[in-house]
């Protein structure tokens, strides 16, 4: 169930409860957009009130994510549902699309709330509590667009320079792991979609299959009941197939998709760590070439060394946490898939067994009537 959320620290320790619901569409002269209601209940002292209700649109979530990435470059920020992609299956602003997005946004905020560091982020607090105009004015503060662009340019440049020189073994292992994981999770995502498609095609054919038997029964006398029985069994199995498909689309597909996004996020986090290390390495190299101004440099280097150590520790801790959650998510999702399939087969089995029982009863009745004179 997508709204179920496990509590890492146990429900008794949780002091921040967030829900995302009630999508509403807004039409202005320029655009149409959806806002979602975000309700927060908390017992934390830092919050002025114990309950908040605000409206947020997708843009606001994007802003929050980028602020978190900025403040914690080597922490694993949870994935956001993507902007609308023309997949041809779902229309923008269709009920299905909005509901899928709502669930993902709900998960996003709760994952942040559960994160030992991110939960105390100031921008997060403002996101949850500020009224619309307050949020707008807060968004306008902070480093401007140009400086952010500058950071990006530097980041790209340093990554090109091969920041992997002094990378600790542990992070190389993480990189290798993530490359394979990313590949596999993408494959699984495709496989799961393929299964969904095949099941849907099967369902569509089955819908036509049952009624033919009913049609046939209209021309028959002796076997009419058997034919009608088969028709009803097929129809019930058809409905069971529909349920199985729903299970896939509500559980497995969203989770696999999240982890596809996660694998991109993690590759990004590893790169940013490399960049931070790269800054240190390049300063150290520069020092090696200069004989004078050693003192100035060594203070700078000291600061960078601290920065690298903090980044590495943060990432290591978050990585362990992420792996544990991933294991839990995968275990629970695939177990759920197996349960779904079990329910499907058990329901079909019961249907056919009861049909068979009804037929063999008839046979016994026929045999008895033959014995009578």
């Amino acid at each position: 169930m997508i709204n179920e959320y496990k509590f890492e620290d146990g429900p008794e320790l949780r002091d921040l409860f967030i829900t995302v619901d009630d999508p509403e569409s807004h039409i202005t002269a320029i655009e149409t957009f959806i806002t979602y209601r975000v309700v927060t209940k908390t017992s934390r002292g830092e919050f002025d009130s114990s309950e908040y209700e605000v409206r947020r649109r997708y843009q606001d979530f994007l802003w929050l994510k980028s602020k978190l990435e900025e403040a914690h470059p080597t922490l694993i920020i949870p994935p956001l549902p993507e902007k609308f992609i023309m997949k041809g299956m779902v229309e923008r602003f269709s009920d299905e699309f909005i509901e899928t997005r709502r669930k993902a946004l709900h998960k996003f905020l709760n994952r942040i709330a559960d994160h030992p560091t991110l939960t105390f982020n100031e921008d997060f607090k403002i996101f949850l509590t500020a009224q619309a105009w307050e949020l707008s004015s807060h968004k306008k503060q902070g480093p401007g667009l140009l400086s952010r662009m500058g950071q990006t340019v530097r980041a790209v440049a340093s990554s090109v320079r091969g920041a992997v020189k002094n990378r600790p073994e542990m992070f190389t292992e993480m990189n290798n792991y993530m490359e394979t994981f990313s590949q596999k999770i993408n494959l699984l995502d495709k496989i799961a979609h393929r299964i969904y498609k095949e099941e849907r095609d099967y369902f569509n054919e089955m819908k036509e299959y049952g009624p033919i038997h009913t049609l046939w029964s209209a021309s028959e006398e002796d076997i009419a009941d058997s034919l009608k029985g088969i028709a009803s069994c097929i129809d019930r199995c058809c409905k069971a197939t529909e349920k199985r498909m729903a299970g896939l689309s509500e559980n497995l597909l969203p989770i696999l998709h999240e982890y596809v996004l996660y694998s991109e996020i993690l590759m990004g986090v590893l790169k940013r760590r490399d960049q931070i290390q790269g800054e240190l390495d390049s300063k150290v190299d520069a020092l090696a070439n200069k004989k004078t101004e050693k003192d100035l440099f060594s203070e700078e280097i000291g600061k960078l060394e601290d920065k690298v150590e903090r980044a590495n520790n943060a990432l290591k801790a978050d990585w362990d946490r992420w792996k544990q959650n991933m294991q839990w998510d995968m275990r629970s999702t695939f177990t759920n898939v197996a349960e779904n399939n079990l329910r499907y087969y058990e329901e079909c089995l019961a249907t056919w067994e009861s049909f068979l029982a009804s037929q063999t009863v008839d046979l016994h009745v026929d045999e008895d009537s033959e014995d009578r004179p």
Partner: protein
Amino acid sequence: MEDCLAKKMEITVSEAEKRTGRNAMNIQETYTAYLIETRAVESQSEGQCAPVDSLWRRYSEFELLRNYLSVTYPHIVVPPLPEKRADFVWHKLSADNMDPDFVERRRIGLENFLLRVASHPVLCQDKIFYAFLTQEGGWKEMVNETGFQLKADSRLKALNATFRVKNPDKRFTELKHYSDELQSVISHLLRVRARVADRLYGVYKVHGNYGRVFSEWSAIEKEMGDGLQSAGHHMDVYAASIDDILEEEEHYADQLKEYLFYAEALRAVCRKHELMQYDLEMAAQDLTSKKQQCEELATGTVRTFSLKGMTSKLFGQETPEQREAKIKVLEEQIQEGEEQLKSKNLEGRDFVKSAWADIERFKEQKNHDLKEALISYAVMQISMCKKGIQVWTNAKECFSKM
């Protein structure tokens, strides 16, 4: 039923073999030959098994046999042959006549055909049929010598030609409608079943992809590795299980197909009745008109328009001698006609009686066989569900250990 051949003789079509040979036009061709084995059923007290006789026949010979039976026993619903070409195939099945699976299913179908004929109270006594089973050489000549092709009414082949029959037996008319409906509904069912089979195949096979990816993923995981690996194995088992399931279902489809073709045989009997009734009505009409002509000539009144009448009016009457001669000819024809009509009537009534008896027999057989087939379909579904439950129970256990 005590007398039927099936009780006295074990009949099997045990093998199929590819052959090459020259056909009637001296062209090299490849065909499949089927081995028919027969053995007299001895009482068990003898303790020894009777020897097995065997001979090879090809499909075209079976066709010849069936044509002969259809023409010779038009009042019987003659069992149908398995299909000549693979029809209602879904993607995995081959439409190729030489495909071993098709040949195997045809072998079973041919055996079934022989058993049906051998257990029919009338057909099993036919000498040509017995020779088909026991006499390898000269059988074709024997069949042709019966001259059955001459008896064949080509009008029966024109399936869609309608005959304006004034008084058909209503039961046959209803039966013809039933056979049309049966043909139509079974065709439809088989078509959709093939599509359903195709889709089901797709669902199962795609799960096989899990196996490979889980296995590769498990290589980078420490704790999750074992669970993933073993779950992947179960997914492979699941994907492979569909092959046997669908092969079994193919036999169910063949059972339905037999009755699809039986519907045609049923229709043929109805058509025969229609034709006989038509010929009867035509003969009666002809007789009536001849009687009328005779009367007119005798009394000199012309009630019916005839060219002769007109010309005689224009060019003079006939002489009394000419008239007498004509009347005599007509009286002979009328007598012949009355005898023919009597025998046609008798024929017609006999046909209706014996055909209806066989139709009742057929109806019982059909109801029994189809009910059994439907039950076997349910049994197959149950088995498929149980296999599914087993695999997913195992998979669930592996997943929960991840």
